[in-house]
């Protein structure tokens, strides 16, 4: 066990809200949705097992909504939202929450920015009042902006620049999207972060932070009626913005040529092969293709022991991998992504590992899907819904991410059934989306290997 503080765990937790998740076994009467007259959407998830509440506000404003040349401004403003308002002195926001025993934080993604507090259920009104306050009355000093810009540059150094795997992933994403802003990193390119100003932050804030661009999710030991009363009192008086329009981003042209990138770095020990494809996202009202894609990822690389890639590459007399995986991320406003990753053992080149991976996928697609394997995935997806009820935080994130990504409460509630309805034929049809022309393959190599 190492002495160092772990920092990565929080990320993983927040990005899994998607594919394999949904709410079938959450009794639907535990979830209530309504909209305030000023346009703010509200979702309440009742769970009275512990006297705790999670309060989240999601804005339909993510890095993919940024003006060109201002990458990182969504994330920068997220940081600056913890400075002051007309009612809360700079730096006191989190302190006031902590003084009530609560904790708070925030996150930024391509399609949304979210703020959350976790606190004793009887303090809900307090955090709601504070969140409502900073939706409209943020105050930023030049000094706060300058210091916080240094913080996010350090954050970028820590998350990306210090980790060759992250650097390559950032480059791969930029190669993945020819025109859509999903190719720009959430945290921003360093040279553009360095140029972000107080005016940029306030412009962003004025454009997107409004009740008619926000989704409130409250989960825990509350009733829908109580949340409605509190929300009407706290968020209800906020005026909507006139400028909130439909979210239109530049779309991708036909992707006609597969892309391949590689990078060698002295900090890399194990070569890694990754491939990602642009594939359809979960569509409102039409969950079938995304549900099938979820099975495809599970069957190909969901288990390090029984999936098709693991069986073909990690077992036998001459394994071509020590690690394999596949995943599908379908909760997105514009495009989903499907990914594959392989780490070969010593003595197996990335070229050979890639050939073995492609052979394994071709083999999987050329044969009927093993009915027992298919049934196991179905059973696990059903059970995941039962386990998910133990995590009201996770349920809150599930609804928030979906609603901020163009899906509806009904879409979230229909998802588990859609997963149970997937057929092997649908999975094979979904596999058509794995078109190499829409893919980026990246090789991460130790420096010594690259010089050979």
């Amino acid at each position, binding site marked *: *066990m*190492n*002495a*160092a*503080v*772990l*920092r990565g*765990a*929080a990320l993983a937790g*927040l990005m899994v809200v998607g594919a394999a998740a949904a709410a079938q076994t959450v009794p639907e009467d535990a979830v209530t949705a309504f909209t305030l007259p000023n346009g703010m959407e509200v979702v309440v998830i009742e769970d009275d*097992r*512990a*006297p*705790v509440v999670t309060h989240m506000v999601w804005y339909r404003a993510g890095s993919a909504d940024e003006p060109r040349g201002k990458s990182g401004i969504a994330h920068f403003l997220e940081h600056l939202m*913890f400075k002051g308002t007309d009612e809360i002195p700079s*730096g006191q926001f*989190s*302190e006031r929450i*902590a*003084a*009530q*025993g*609560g*904790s708070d*934080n*925030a*996150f*930024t*993604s*391509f399609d949304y920015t979210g703020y959350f507090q*976790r606190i*004793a259920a009887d303090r809900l009104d307090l955090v709601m009042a504070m969140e409502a306050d900073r939706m409209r009355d943020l105050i930023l000093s030049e000094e706060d902006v300058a*210091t916080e*810009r240094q*913080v996010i540059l*350090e*954050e970028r*150094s*820590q*998350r990306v*620049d*210090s980790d060759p795997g992250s650097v390559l*992933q950032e480059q791969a994403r930029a190669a993945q999207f020819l025109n859509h802003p999903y190719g720009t990193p*959430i945290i921003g390119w360093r040279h553009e972060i360095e140029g972000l100003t107080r005016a940029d932050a306030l412009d962003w804030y004025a454009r997107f932070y409004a009740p008619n661009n926000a989704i409130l999710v409250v989960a825990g*030991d509350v009733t829908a009626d109580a949340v409605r009363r509190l929300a009407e009192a706290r968020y209800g008086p906020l005026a909507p913005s006139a400028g909130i329009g439909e979210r239109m981003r530049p779309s991708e042209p036909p992707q006609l040529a597969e892309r391949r990138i590689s990078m060698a770095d*002295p*900090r890399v*020990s194990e070569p890694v092969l990754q491939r990602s494809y642009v594939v359809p996202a979960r569509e409102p009202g039409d969950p079938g293709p995304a549900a099938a894609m979820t099975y495809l990822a599970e069957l190909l690389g969901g*288990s390090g*022991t*029984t999936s098709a890639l693991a069986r073909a590459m990690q*077992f036998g007399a001459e394994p071509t991998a*020590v690690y394999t995986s596949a995943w599908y991320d379908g909760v997105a406003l514009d495009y989903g992504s499907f990914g594959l990753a392989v*780490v070969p053992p010593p003595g197996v080149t990335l070229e050979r590992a890639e050939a073995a991976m492609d052979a394994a996928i071709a083999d999987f697609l050329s044969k009927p899907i093993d009915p027992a394997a298919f049934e196991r995935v179905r059973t696990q997806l*059903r*059970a*995941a819904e039962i*386990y998910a009820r*133990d995590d*009201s935080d996770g349920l809150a994130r599930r609804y928030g991410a979906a609603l901020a990504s163009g899906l509806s409460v009904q879409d979230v509630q229909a998802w588990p059934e859609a997963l149970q309805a997937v057929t092997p034929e649908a999975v094979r049809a979904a596999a058509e989306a794995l078109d190499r022309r829409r893919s980026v393959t990246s090789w991460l190599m130790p420096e010594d290997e690259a010089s050979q």
Partner: protein
Amino acid sequence: MIAIRSFLIAALVALPLLAQPLRAQIAAIEEVVSPGGIRAWLVPEPGIPFVALEIRFRGGTSLDAPGRRGAVNLMTGLIEEGAGDLDAQGFAAARDALAAEFRFRATADDVAVSARFLTENRDAAVDLLRAALTGPRFDADAVERVRGQVLAGLRSDARDPRTIAGEVFDRDAFGDHPYGSSGDGTLDSVAALTRDDVLAAWRGALARDRIYVSAVGDITAEALGPMLDRLLGGLPATGAPLPPQAAYGARGGVTVVDFPSPQSVIVFGHEGLPRDDPDFFAAFIANEILGGGRFSARLMTELRERRGLTYGVATYLMPRDRAALMMGSLDTANATVAQAIDLIRAEWARMAAEGVTQAELDAAKTYLTGSYPLRFDSNAAIANILVGMQMEGLPIDYAQTRNARIEAVTLEDLRRVAGSLLRPEDLHFVVVGRPEGVESTN
């Protein structure tokens, strides 16, 4: 991919509680003793049809026999790779068909088993877990496959600045004691492990004389007792002797490890206080004010909020079974390492000399007492807390008394304890990177 404002700091110690609601939760803890004599703490929670089960075996990777570093870790990685008449793929298929989830991991102090299974197939899931715990096959091909994974991890760790910093600190602190090296072993030691070593590690580490169990979820005390006997009764009564206390040997100063990166990773610390020290609560509060999880902690304020030197800095008490540390860490640009170290030393010295203010103490108490019940929010979380309380030797009603212990700490306690706990001259910094103007002092 999501960027987050701050890293979440791992909770290291269980803490106090707030008002009634938690009492309602905690009051429901029952001690169950199985017919065969296995003890467990139980919170029945029939609302969701599954059970979260946590099992800990004290000892962990510190039980590795001389020259067999990494044996317990490799064994832990192999438990699920075939048992009884099932090979690795057969076992995984059986587990997935039941939608049961088993996790096994080894730390320097324990081997931990976390399981979740549905009420509808509880018996079958328990039988499968029993097969893994009491009848693992350790097939030759599985040993080679998992060994390959461990070796790949070790090679990655050797080029990961965070892992390097932690391992160098541990080596400087504990030398040849198992705490002084990675429980994963070394490339050489792991390569040399045999199936017999793995078997010996299994017999030594998974025994009934060192077991702690908690269960939370859809199960009654009447059902849990026999289930424990079926699950764990087949394990040996006794295991390998626990290791001795670890003597702390690091001196104050700086160790620089060259690493090509724009940022340096810094790990720092000195000796701390054991969990059963009467001053532990005062030390815990002192740490909270100095470098705890809140943005208002002194180090966070000085390094991040005022100067933008880092994305995050935190300190924590680490009361392990065989030694106690007070540790901290941060990342900062190579150019600002010297400044960061100076600031940390200065804050250390300031609190050691002056203690804290009444306002800081009050705020820390409110936070610590108020945040405790928020942890008891899921079956899995409660099961984890309960098993941790047992390992620390705390009474079953501990949570009800916890707030009072926090509240009882006075400003004078803080001054006294900060003065002895915080020793800036003893702070040992390990810097992995290319820091400007900072060199090793020893």
